[in-house]
């Protein structure tokens, strides 16, 4: 019955409904089996409260879309500008996603509902904050029952956050390795002994690791015991307080003070900003991606009406940028962790559930500022391949060429053999001209670097 819908490849697990695309718009199909839960969600005041608190991605009922006999309703969620995953998030982004999930569960509990799953895939960073997107995750709460998604929550959120906080590990790398979350037993073995002195970690990780390793039938021993809603609420509040108190150990990366300490000169920075601002004012764009955004200094030059993905491989920079943007309430910039030499792969069933970073969207405009030497000399990627990648991802490109005579490139070549005979300004222009038409070019004062503005060839 439901074959006629163009189902999203990641939406097949939940019998309550699925996500589909029609004429470029995303809709959510709600089947009749979920009718009672959906009505309770919308009529008990829960939905209004969640919308008021900006925790849930808003949606409207799409009555104009044709239903089939199994369908109760079709809703149209607000469009998500760029799908993002936990393996591209920094510590603070994962923390916000965890707190959003817990707040939603707590609010649902007050309306006799509960979340039936608690994976990071239910949350997206949209408009500078974590928003819950899975409208079908709400189920009825029966007094005495446990939170069925408790273990999943700990594995997807609490455990990576604790490992980041206690061991300084990066959450995006952990969740790329464990996309379904890190089991308590592994977390327990990796956490230092001092973590056992903390009641929250002792209970939610170390004790859980011990209990979950018991035999399967042992889990039914205490089934007769009663877990009241007040006790469940206490567990949720305890998780919130534990996650809110976590600190990401301070550690400055070589890139975190780049513009304050490492940059060539203030004259160079000012002139570069001047040139880019002028070029931006002369062009039209709705979306942009800043490859190697660092602290987002250049992403911020874009128009406030445009949507910008500020990507960088340094998780500390992305973490700081996310917090700064949140404090300034700047919602049009989405900071994400992206290592261009190792972009997020396509994952999940049949490699179709989660798309690669680069294939998710084609941007009107791309920035590649002070980046080319890191790819070409730092990673041995030929100029031709760099040009080809950008041509696949953006229509217009503002790119900075950093010559070998530049002190930064000289530093890079200091301890290695110079095998980069093709790394010249002429060769750069030749290779990029195969994919782009260079229509503007300016030398940045205070440096030997050149800025180019180019359009993709038709």
């Amino acid at each position, binding site marked *: 019955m439901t074959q006629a819908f163009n189902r999203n490849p990641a939406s097949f697990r939940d019998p309550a409904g699925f996500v589909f695309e029609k004429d470029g718009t995303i809709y959510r199909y709600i089947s009749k089996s979920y009718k009672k839960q959906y009505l309770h969600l919308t009529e008990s005041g829960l939905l209004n409260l969640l919308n008021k608190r900006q925790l849930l991605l808003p949606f409207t009922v799409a009555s104009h879309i044709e239903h089939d006999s199994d369908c109760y309703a079709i809703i149209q969620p607000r469009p998500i500008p760029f799908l993002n995953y936990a393996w591209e998030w920094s510590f603070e982004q994962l923390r916000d996603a965890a707190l959003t999930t817990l707040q939603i569960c707590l609010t649902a509990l007050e309306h006799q509902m509960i979340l039936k799953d608690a994976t990071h895939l239910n949350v997206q960073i949209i408009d500078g904050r974590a928003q819950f997107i899975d409208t079908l995750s709400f189920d009825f709460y029966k007094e005495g029952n446990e939170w069925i998604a408790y273990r999943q929550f700990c594995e997807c959120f609490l455990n990576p956050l604790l490992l980041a906080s206690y061991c300084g590990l990066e959450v995006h790398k952990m969740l790329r390795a464990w996309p379904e979350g890190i089991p308590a037993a592994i977390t327990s073995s990796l956490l230092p002994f001092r973590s056992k002195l903390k009641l929250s970690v002792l209970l939610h990780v170390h004790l859980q690791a011990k209990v979950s390793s018991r035999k399967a039938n042992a889990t039914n021993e205490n089934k007769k015991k009663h877990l009241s809603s007040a006790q469940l609420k206490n567990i949720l509040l*305890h998780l919130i307080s534990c996650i809110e108190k976590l600190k990401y150990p301070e550690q400055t990366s070589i890139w975190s003070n780049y513009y304050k300490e490492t940059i060539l000169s203030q004259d160079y920075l000012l002139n570069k900003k001047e040139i880019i601002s002028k070029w931006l004012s002369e062009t039209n764009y709705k979306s942009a991606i800043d490859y190697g955004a660092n602290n987002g200094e250049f992403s911020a030059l874009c128009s406030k009406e445009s949507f910008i993905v500020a990507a960088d491989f340094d998780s500390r920079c992305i973490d700081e940028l996310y917090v700064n943007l949140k404090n300034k309430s700047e919602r049009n910039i989405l900071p994400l962790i992206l290592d261009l030499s190792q972009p997020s792969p396509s994952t999940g069933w049949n490699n179709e559930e989660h798309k690669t970073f680069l294939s998710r969207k084609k941007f009107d405009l791309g920035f590649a500022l002070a980046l080319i030497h890191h790819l070409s000399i730092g990673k041995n990627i030929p100029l031709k391949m760099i040009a080809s990648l950008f041509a696949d991802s953006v229509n217009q490109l503002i790119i900075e060429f950093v010559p070998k005579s530049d002190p930064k490139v000289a530093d890079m070549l200091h301890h290695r053999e110079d095998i980069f005979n093709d790394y010249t300004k002429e060769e750069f222009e030749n290779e990029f001209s195969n994919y782009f038409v260079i229509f503007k070019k300016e030398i940045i004062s205070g440096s030997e670097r050149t800025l180019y503005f180019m359009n993709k060839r038709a």
Partner: protein
Amino acid sequence: MIQILYIDPGGGSYLIQVIIAAILGVAFYFKTGWNWVKSFFVKKQSEKSEEANDSGV
């Protein structure tokens, strides 16, 4: 360890939640008691300081 791979992902968390709820209940009981004791001393101290202020006037 192999056995747990065959349990539903949500399974096995009932027992741990019951234990955590019980421990949190006890912890809360002691915390409330401790806060009560603390408030008693804080009150005493503030009263003392008030007295000191009064005598100073």
